[in-house]
């Protein structure tokens, strides 16, 4: 038996199919979920993929956060279902208040697309167990609104509780406070990050590295061993 991992498609999602492919390559079964449909089809975990859902109108993720599927995702996430938000998915998770803080436009006002070096700060979450703490990885980054902000108190709390999961190394691409690239909730089941692990799962594509694959093998092991 394998794990069933849902991938939500919103109007304007771009990376839903790549995410499904990454899940399949890791050995799990991807399940397509639709933004208008509250039914999560009994999946074991959900990924909110990258893209520009609802054209980023109002604020990135602000409208998607109120879509029917998100009602179920928010409810299930609060009772422990693993949820991963990548890029636009991370923005949706902060708008839904499943993760603290908010995402704003890059401080240099330009879209950025590059291979980004990251340090894994927390290898205990549902989505990062196949990494080791302190490991440095390269994953593509591509976004307009990647600047993570939160008040000082929240940032201190995230640091103290080990909830900064990824940090940008060598170069901060968007002005994120304390070089934060990804965070988790207190329970460790909800993780959001700006870079795109689903674009780094096959040696033939992109930088030729597979540094993103452990996201998907981590969750598979967790669900199958559960």
């Amino acid at each position, binding site marked *: 038996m394998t794990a069933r991992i849902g991938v939500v498609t919103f109007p304007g999602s771009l990376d839903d199919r790549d995410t499904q492919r990454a899940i399949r390559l890791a050995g799990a079964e991807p399940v397509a979920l639709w933004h208008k449909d509250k039914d999560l089809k009994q999946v074991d975990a959900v990924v909110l993929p990258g893209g520009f859902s609802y054209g980023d109108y109002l604020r990135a993720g602000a409208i998607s956060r109120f879509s029917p599927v998100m009602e179920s995702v928010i409810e299930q996430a609060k009772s422990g279902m693993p949820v991963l938000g990548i890029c636009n998915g991370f923005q949706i998770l902060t*708008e839904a208040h499943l993760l603290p803080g908010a995402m704003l436009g890059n401080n*240099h*006002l330009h879209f950025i697309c590059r291979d980004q070096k990251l340090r894994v700060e927390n290898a205990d979450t549902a989505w990062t167990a196949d990494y080791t703490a302190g490991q440095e990885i390269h994953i593509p980054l591509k976004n307009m609104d990647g600047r993570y902000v939160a008040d000082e108190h929240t940032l201190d709390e995230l640091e103290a509780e080990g909830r900064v999961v990824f940090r940008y190394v060598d170069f901060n691409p968007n*002005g994120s406070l304390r070089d934060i690239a990804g965070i988790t909730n207190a329970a460790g089941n909800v993780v959001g990050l700006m870079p795109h692990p689903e674009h780094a799962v096959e040696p033939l594509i992109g930088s030729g590295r597979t540094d993103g694959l452990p996201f998907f093998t981590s969750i598979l092991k967790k669900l199958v061993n559960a």
Partner: protein
Amino acid sequence: MARVVVDVMLKPEILDPQGQAVQRALPRLGFEGVSDVRQGKRFELEVDGPVDDAALARIHELAESFLANTVIEDFTVKVEEMVGEEK
């Protein structure tokens, strides 16, 4: 009918690179003496029926939960004008 205006601004402590870019362009346009610019959003809501306390409370709730993200933004709600109605 009445128009209710919701103004949304980034909190003072949040960096506003768009506002800074506007500010930096001003001297080139011959505008001197503007030391800071911050850019926000304005929403104009045309409301059916009377804008009583209950209606304003609902709009306030809408602004707080949707139009603004209060993690990074402040907002104000004001009734701008009454149209076609004796008040």
